[in-house]
């Protein structure tokens, strides 16, 4: 009974997500590293409020895909539009997109010479042009949301991996982005720290943030995702709601992948 309500809720999410506007759209996107083709004609539409989990074997182009969305990598063919702005040679457009898209990295990438609070207040001050005290208030608010306000005055090197990753989430949120990208956020963490980061991400998902998450945490995918995308060799092989994806995979490569990791 309980299970069924969960299912219907989830379907409700998908329905509402699909009816809302498209925030990220990729059309026939290809990306090469020298001779190696990392992305091969990707088509993808992400709707506002949608939570997408991307999985697949290593080297399948998952990370490259989301790194193309805020142009940490340049794509060579196709079009990427984020919040209606097209990503091209124009650096103004790139900066505009980056200020709408937050990103969390596998290796945290906090700024070691700044305190936790300064890390989080950087983009409000310099990108959103707030005053210092206003920006620090905002940063504190997000540190509260990831449950580490007491660490605000410490330097990143003094925190555990899980704490650092939560600071990284707060730092990305402090820019007040419309989309959040997660690039294997738990892969560099000790097992006992994974849960605290996933919990933070689940809270974020429940608040309605549009999220693209590259992860191998299938429990998280099952619980949070509106849609799971399976990639292999630079292509989207299969995408579906979690229920269908886990219980009834259609593609052979998906079946093989799931049999290996579940």
């Amino acid at each position, binding site marked *: 009974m309980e299970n069924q309500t969960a299912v219907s809720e989830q379907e409700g999410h998908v329905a509402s997500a699909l009816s809302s506007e498209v925030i990220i759209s990729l059309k026939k996107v290809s990306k090469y590293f020298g001779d190696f083709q990392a992305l091969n004609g990707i088509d993808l539409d992400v709707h506002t409020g949608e939570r997408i989990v991307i999985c697949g074997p290593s080297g399948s182009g998952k990370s490259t895909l989301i790194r193309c969305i*805020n142009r*940490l990598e340049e794509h060579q063919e196709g079009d990427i539009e984020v919040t209606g702005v097209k990503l091209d040679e124009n650096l103004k457009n790139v*900066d505009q997109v*980056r*200020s709408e*898209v*937050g*990103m969390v*990295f596998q*290796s945290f*990438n*906090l*700024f*070691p*010479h700044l305190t936790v609070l300064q890390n989080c207040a*950087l*983009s409000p001050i*310099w*990108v959103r*042009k*707030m*005053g*210092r*005290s*206003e920006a620090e208030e905002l940063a504190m608010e997000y540190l509260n949301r990831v449950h580490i306000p007491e660490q605000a005055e410490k*330097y990143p*090197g*003094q925190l555990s991996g899980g704490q650092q990753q939560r600071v*990284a989430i707060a*730092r*990305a949120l402090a*820019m007040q982005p419309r989309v959040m990208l997660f690039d294997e956020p738990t892969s560099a963490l000790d097992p006992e720290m994974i849960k605290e980061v996933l919990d933070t991400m689940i809270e974020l998902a429940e608040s309605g943030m549009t999220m693209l998450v590259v992860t191998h945490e299938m429990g998280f995918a099952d619980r949070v995702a509106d849609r799971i995308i399976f990639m292999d060799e630079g292509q989207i092989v299969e995408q579906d709601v979690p229920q269908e994806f886990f219980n009834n995979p259609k593609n052979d490569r998906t079946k093989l992948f799931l049999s290996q990791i579940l």
Partner: protein
Amino acid sequence: MNQTVSNSITVRWWYWARENLFNSWLNTILSIICIVIIYNAVWGIFSWAILNGIWEAKDRRECFAILGKDEAGNPIQGACWAGVREWFNNIIYGRYVKDEQWRVNLGISILIVWMIPLWVPNLKRKFLIGFGAIGLYPFLASYLFLGGERSWFVSFMVSLAIITFCYNTVDWLGVKAFRVSLADSLRWKMVNRIFAEKQHTFALMGLFAIIAVMLAFLIQDWILVDVSWVRMGGFHLTLVISGFAMTVGLPCGIILALGRRSRLPIIKAFAVTFIEVFRSVPLITILFMATAMFPLFMPEGFELNKLVQVIAAVCLFTSCYMAEIVRSGLQAIPKGQFEAASSIGLGYWQSMGLVVMPQALKFMIPNIVSSFIGIFKDTTLVYIVGMFDILAMTRAMGNDVPWRGEFHEPFLMTAIIFFVCCYTMSQYSQRLERKLSGENK
């Protein structure tokens, strides 16, 4: 009773010596040989410089007469400091006009007072203080040293330098003595009364500019006697040249290093060529080029004074060395830092200035300072193109008629001056390094 004896300093010394110097036969022999050598050297210098030193004499002949001869009829060796005393003024100020030397003293004192806050622990805004000094002090100093008529622009910059200097000094003295910061209270008043917080820096700059214009009017009639650059010399000239080299070299080096890493081919090619050309040529060659050959390329009647040419040459040379140091520092920063800075929306200059450079500079400090020390000593080469820097003055003393042939004393004196300066720099860099590495732990 027994314990006090064993803890007394002599006993502890004896134990230390036995543990470290005389713990085996071989070590004992080596230790004794070393002690004898050190004793002879130290005693020799001490008796020559201090015991037999002559402080009052009118020329070198008189020094010899006072020292006299020993029983065997050999002349007694002793330092003739009287000559160094007479030439001291020349070694420090060169041929700078005697009545105007207070200007040099004032200029150097202002610089020292301006820089003191950088040594004082727990002061905020050190970066701004350093930046202000680099940007404004050269105007104040060059006017103080050279004097003469000045343009409106120079008047304005000199006034701005004076105001910034007073403001900084009052601020940090206030913080240390009364725990009241002038800067904070000024800011606080402005933030709450007139301006929004994010505008306060601009407001403060505007306020400074207005006061500077008013001060420029006030000091319109205050004109210093013109002292030609030809008269600048001695240690003063060494300080001026190396000071310019350091303050211009670092920012130019940063720009060149960024140029070398640039993706734009023209900028990159320019930076690479520039760095490689000036780095692979000895400083002497660059100095000769600047003073002897550069005027040949210039149109007839175009004259640039030699001091400016020499300073420009040394600055070019330093910039290229700095560029390579900065580049190595930038390479030590992981790629993730650039990516993270971009991902939170910072543009190129913002990520460089806020995220990458502050971290990279920390790695670079030891290299930068050792390069500064090198440049400081290398500036003595300018005497080859006819500048009377400290080394030229030291040599000139031995060629002066009353003191002919006296070289040991002035060179020892110059060596001491260089040692004090370079050792201070290296101590400061070590302090800075310790402090910065402590911050991130």
